[in-house]
């Protein structure tokens, strides 16, 4: 529990509802440079609980082919941090769905760590996910930096993360832990195996103070529903990007309905 602190935007969601939360990830600048606003509006109108905005990166180590492809397209479209920050600042007033930024650590270093944080705050965002920022680097440096700007860092856990380490991550977490569903990069497909269920149950039984949002390999109603039995919600990325690629922004409503129906 968080004491004597203002809750971040995601914690405020959890306070209203902490079951079956749906988060959608998309890559900013895909399929078109200026699609960001429309995608966020559509997702919000269709009841998505919070949205992850991916900052396209040239070398996304943790991402599978779908998100890699969307990143390449976005970069070719001319997307960069200044463009996305401008877009997000513009929609800030109207948008009521909390946004989470997801990017790689090199983008932050190059942009300037303080400059990056200032922009994040200016966009009304208070939660970020950096898949290649490990706990030791966070504790040694980024924790202080993010605190200064009131930014919450989301940690990932995986089937290989030890119990001790999960406890430590739990103690550093304000809001939710991103529970990676399997040993995979994003978009690795398929059903949820019994092995994964064992892992979900093991984590659930730890009674962590943090909420658990499950991601990587969640793609449809079946996998979403299953994930929500063990976590507080789930994140869908690659499947959404595939749908965007095929059906465009017009298809967002039916995609979301296909997940939560």
């Amino acid at each position, binding site marked *: 529990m968080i004491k004597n602190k203002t809750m971040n935007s995601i914690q405020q969601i959890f306070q209203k509802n902490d079951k079956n939360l749906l988060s959608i990830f998309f890559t900013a600048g895909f399929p078109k440079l200026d699609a960001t606003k429309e995608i966020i509006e559509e997702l919000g109108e269709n009841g998505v609980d919070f949205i992850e905005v991916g900052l396209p990166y040239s070398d996304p*180590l943790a991402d599978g082919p779908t998100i890699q492809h969307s990143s390449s397209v976005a970069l070719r479209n001319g997307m960069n941090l200044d463009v996305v920050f401008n877009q997000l600042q513009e929609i800030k007033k109207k948008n009521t769905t909390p946004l989470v930024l997801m990017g790689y650590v090199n983008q932050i270093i190059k942009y300037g760590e303080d400059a990056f944080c200032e922009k994040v705050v200016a966009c009304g965002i208070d939660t970020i996910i950096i898949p290649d920022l490990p706990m030791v680097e966070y504790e040694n440096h980024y924790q202080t930096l993010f605190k200064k700007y009131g930014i919450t860092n989301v*940690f990932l856990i995986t089937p290989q993360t030890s119990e001790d380490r999960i406890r430590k991550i739990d103690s550093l977490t304000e809001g939710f832990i991103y529970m990676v569903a399997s040993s995979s990069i994003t978009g690795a497909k398929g059903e949820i195996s019994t092995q994964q269920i064992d892992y979900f149950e093991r984590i659930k039984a730890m009674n962590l103070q943090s909420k658990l949002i499950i991601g990587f390999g969640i793609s449809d109603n079946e996998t979403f529903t299953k994930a929500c039995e063990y976590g507080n919600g789930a994140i869908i990325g690659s499947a959404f990007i595939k749908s965007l690629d095929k059906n465009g922004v017009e298809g967002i409503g039916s995609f979301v309905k296909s997940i939560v129906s």
Partner: protein
Amino acid sequence: MKFNPDKNGYYGQFGGSFIPELLYPNAKELEDNYIRIIESEAFQKEYKALLKDYVGRPSPLYLAKRLSEKYGATIYLKREDLNHTGAHKVNNTIGQILIARELGKTQIIAETGAGQHGVATATVCALMGLECTVFMGEKDIERQAPNVARMKMLGAKVVPATSGSKTLKDATNEAIRYWIQNPEAYYLIGSVVGMHPYPDMVTRLQAIISEEMKWQLKEHTGKENPDTIIACVGGGSNAAGAFYHYLEDEEVELIAVEAAGLGVDSGESAATSQLGEVGVIHGSKTILMQDEYGQIVEPYSISAGLDYPGVGPLHAHLFETKRARFMNATDKEALTAAYELTRLEGIIPALETAHALAVLPKMDLKSDQTIIINLSGRGDKDLATFIKHLEE
């Protein structure tokens, strides 16, 4: 030793371990064990025996008389080109395969650029009877066909990296992605790059080069230390090995030679120290070629082994602290130097190595100066390129 990394894998501000949580247990297992294994008597005995009887070490330190005459200095060549598989790369793969075996790993993965590390990995996997998968950029597969054939003959599976720019950095990305999905595999990195502890582990395994240089030069001249050591740098493993035992001997000038491609300012270059800025690549904070938004830029060099957009964190530190002097050579200068060595000494060097030779005409050499050039590999694999330019 003050040039070893700290417990988090940092050389000054460079290094560390910027990896997805999925890789943490793998990196941690290695971090917790590599020094213990390398320093164990059993490892040292087997490593040294294989280096001697299988690789053919010690590699000779050869006084290149005609080259010396031409440049008016005393120039020795450390003949890593005479190693089994044709380059220094095998020093590292022999060591890491023993570490992998000690850790109980049976499946080996590796990335390769020019294919030398891929061949060296496929070789030790054949030697140990272990399964081997090598990731190689689609473009590199085309330009290094002989090494692809060698890897296949050795029983390795060669997987084309088709993402990004389809060269070494993408092959490394693909190897890391595969490792994330197959955490039971052992990732045998070929240079002093990547997340901690790889830069230090590979440096220690390549340090045999400078360990031998010390006693060999003493045999030749009565002194352990030359005035200058020159080595080419892509990721930087042959340079790390050639410099290691001299790092604290501040009177020894260390020269790292990067590939300038068509020229440092041509937009087609791989001179990372000149064109890069602080950033993170493949889990390591280092100097990196990138655009203003931190997107990694694809470097260019005629040599597939030098076109890496980063440089190992040890080298970034040597550059920043000015312990090493960074020079560079263009494609053309490297080709000229390769021909020169071939005609003067009867040694065809690898294109990578030719970059180290190519700085000789740019240096202000003194007649009593003793230089060791690390002749990191032989040029058989580059014959097609050499022949093409011979005809021009």
